[in-house]
């Protein structure tokens, strides 16, 4: 109940138009010229001091991207970004990489403080005794501060920016980069392959249980900067890692494009848990501004008995186009997808997952909770497929949609393909609204309308919230309340 109380307080403080995290930091940035051409790709690669093979990889992706068309199958409508009117590279100006937090631009630190993630206090995150969260902070495109490196190094864990990994661990990057999401996988992933600026790299050695939860805070800052993050996580045999990703962006009038690629590789007996809380600027009440989020996330359960679990809480962005998927290649591998997608105002969400069963006795579970309010549109789009050789494949899917108000819409588009008779697939979907009985019950006990809605929605999404790491749970309950602000009455 404490969390709900807090939610109510936050809701009171805000109007729909006031995006809490909508502020801009003035830091000098180094930018590449606007637009995209071969020179820009070369510029990014040179700026990052990359080896020749990386540049070739980027150039190849760029050439393929030129031949591709933007996908139009998703149930979203928006003005297509002008790819020649974007900056593809922006880095905070800093003469040399800082060695400690003291050397970091104070304004940058203040930005994070406003976001509620004071770097100086992150060693022990509030309320979680003893837990440590290492943070590879991404400010626009370049990793500025990486902490806890030493402790991780003791365990043999590599946690660094991808540009660093390209230089320091080229054998790992060459082996795994693009092995889950091929460089020309889809329009946005290909664009990312050509111009990705930075991102995180994680390698967990065999048999190691990562001593802490790893986390990255994304932050889009520089005006007109397309963000092209690239994340690569490899869990070697018998290892375990939990990765947290949280996002928030400042208020803007122009649409901001974000096309990230996340690749996960789990080898034999390894497990990766990837959690996301996404709260980018959704645009004002007329739908102006707001982030375009076109993300390709895919996990490959490459080894036997491996497991990949995606948990996502999507409350922000004007347009969300995101399908965290699992390729269940290894025998007995498991894939999970837990999602809460909340849309309000004029937001459009088209999100879901793909579970591709290739190995024997693989299983997957999908729990998706869509909450649609205001004039928003919320679509679940998913694929569950069993290959001919995937005997004993098992899937359970539950997609629930909740509608708040008569101007919004909710859609469910699942594709279920069984090419093997021993596959057992179950899919269930429901759409409903908050019943008058539920509201009456809550209000009769003294909650006002908004409190009641927040409580009921938190209950509706409970199964997913429970999957989140402790650190995110409280934050998520707050976010749910804030996101639905202004949707009732």
């Amino acid at each position, binding site marked *: 109940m404490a969390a709900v109380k807090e939610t109510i307080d936050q809701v009171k403080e805000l109007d729909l138009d006031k995006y809490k995290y909508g502020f801009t930091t003035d830091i000098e940035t180094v930018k590449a010229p606007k637009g995209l051409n071969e020179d820009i790709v070369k510029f990014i690669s040179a700026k990052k001091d990359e080896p020749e093979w990386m540049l070739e990889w980027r150039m190849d992706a760029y050439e393929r991207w030129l031949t591709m068309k933007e996908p139009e199958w998703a149930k979203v409508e928006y003005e297509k970004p002008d790819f020649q009117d974007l900056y593809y590279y922006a880095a905070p100006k800093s003469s040399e990489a800082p060695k400690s937090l003291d050397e970091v631009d104070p304004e940058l630190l203040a930005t994070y403080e406003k976001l509620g993630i004071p770097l100086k206090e992150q060693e022990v995150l509030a309320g979680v005794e003893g837990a440590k969260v290492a943070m590879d902070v991404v400010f626009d495109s370049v990793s500025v501060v990486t902490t806890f490196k030493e402790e991780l190094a003791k365990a043999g864990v590599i946690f660094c920016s991808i540009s660093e990994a390209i230089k320091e661990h080229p054998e790992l990057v060459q082996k795994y980069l693009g092995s889950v999401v091929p460089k020309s996988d889809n329009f946005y992933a290909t664009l990312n392959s050509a111009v990705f600026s930075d991102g995180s790299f994680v390698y967990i050695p065999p048999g190691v249980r990562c001593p802490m939860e790893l986390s990255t805070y994304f932050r889009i800052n520089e005006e007109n900067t397309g963000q092209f993050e690239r994340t690569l996580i490899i869990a070697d045999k018998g290892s375990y890692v939990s990765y947290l990703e949280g996002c928030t962006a400042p208020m803007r009038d122009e649409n901001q494009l974000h096309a990230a690629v996340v690749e996960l590789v789990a080898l034999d007996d390894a497990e990766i848990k990837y959690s996301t809380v996404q709260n980018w600027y959704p645009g004002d009440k007329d739908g102006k501004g707001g982030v375009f989020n076109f993300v390709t996330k895919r996990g490959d359960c490459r080894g036997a008995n491996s497991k990949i679990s995606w948990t996502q809480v999507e409350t922000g962005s004007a347009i969300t186009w995101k399908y965290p998927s699992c390729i269940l290649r290894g025998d007995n591998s498991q894939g999970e997808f837990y999602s809460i997608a909340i849309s309000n105002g004029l937001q459009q969400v088209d999100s879901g997952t793909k579970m591709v069963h290739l190995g024997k006795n693989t299983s997957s579970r999908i729990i998706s909770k869509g909450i649609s309010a205001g004039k928003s549109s919320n679509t679940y789009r998913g694929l569950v497929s069993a290959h001919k050789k995937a005997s004993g494949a098992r899937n359970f899917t539950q997609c629930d*949609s909740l509608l708040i108000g008569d101007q919004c819409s*909710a859609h*469910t*588009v699942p594709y*279920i393909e069984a090419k093997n*008779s021993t596959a057992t697939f179950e*899919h269930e979907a*429901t*759409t409903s609204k908050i019943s008058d009985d539920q509201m009456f019950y809550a209000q009769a006990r003294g909650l006002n309308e908004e409190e009641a809605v927040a409580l009921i929605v938190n209950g509706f999404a409970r199964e997913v919230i429970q999957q989140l790491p402790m650190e995110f749970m409280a934050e998520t309950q707050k976010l749910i309340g804030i996101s639905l602000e202004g949707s009732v009455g």
Partner: protein
Amino acid sequence: MELVRTEAETGLISLSEEAKIDGPAWLKELQETARAEFQAKGLPNRRVEEWKYTDLKSAMKVAFKPVDQGDVTEAQINEQLGAELAAISTHKLVFVDGQLNEQLSDCSLGELSEVLSLKAALADDVSWVQSIGTVQQNERDAVQALNLALMQGGAAIKIADRHELNKPIHLIFVSTATSESSVASRLFFEIGAAAKVEIIESHISLEDKPSQTNLVTEVLVGDWAKVRHVKFTNDHKESVHLSNVIGKLGKEADYGLFQATLDGGLTRNQVEIRYDGDEAKADISGVALLSGKSHADLTLVMDHAALSCESRELFKTVLDDEGRAVFQGKVIVQPGAQKTDGEMMSKALLLSETAEFDSKPELEIYADDVLCGHGATTGQIDDDLLFYLKARGVPDEEARSLLIQAFVGEALELIENDDLRDYVINQTLAWYEKA
């Protein structure tokens, strides 16, 4: 850009040239538009989202030609129907190679009700048939357009207001062709307010030759009217059967459609129901039992545009050998269609390693006060259930057959007419024995 046409497409386009009906100007225009639509789209292939799992372009190599109406006797028809079905007392409407044969048919459905041959009704520009081709709300797909361009056979059937038919109408499509042939027909039903009609539809062939059927059934269901339609097909294994049922429901109308598909070549049963009047309800259900290389596709759109309507769908599919089934069901709730209650369920049982089932149940909802849900399952025979039966002395094969019957039975129960239900159950039993 010049389209690369397949042999079948070229064939169909030239057939549509010959198929123009000499009728009123509006009809000429309608056929011409439809022909142009088909020319622009070509046969649907897997790049067309609604045809993702049924690639008609690659499955249909050549276009068969229609044949002239052949000779057939009542005895021959009854023999093909089988004693059980022939014994059900009905108003028989016999379509020989697509054309309504009035000698073999019983067209007297009662006062103010009418049965007209489609071509004659169009040529004479009968006023109530003028709404042909307009029941559909969504954009026509290539197959529906093709039907308008090619239609030769079929009938226009009008049931007067408050008229309750004393026995079912039995639509019997007979093919007499001695070689490959095609039929493009359209049925246009205008069911009056508070009328009650039961329709049985069967497709038979005297010579058992491959055929290509393109059948569109348009149904205008009047306020408070009740319609029950049961369709049964068991086509040749090289046949292509493309069927569209397009219905529009009036206030408090009650519409039921049950489609049973046994084997066949490529079968596509497409259904589009538009709820136009408040409190209307529809139950669209069916079974498909497929063996060999049969491919059956059930594509459904339930479009709710009125208040407090109800939709129910239940489909059971059993797949053996290399059988392949597709289920695509979409429930749309238009803005303002509050209090909609929709439930859709599709279940498939896979009996062989090489069978394939693809399903895509969709919800598209623009109103908040609704209760909509769908479920889809795929699996094989439950080992526990099999064990239970075998432990009680039921031999393996019999136990399996019982479990399949029970699985399909849930849907078959929805057929209201007792005699007809028994007939369909017996047909499915014969299928199990063969499989």
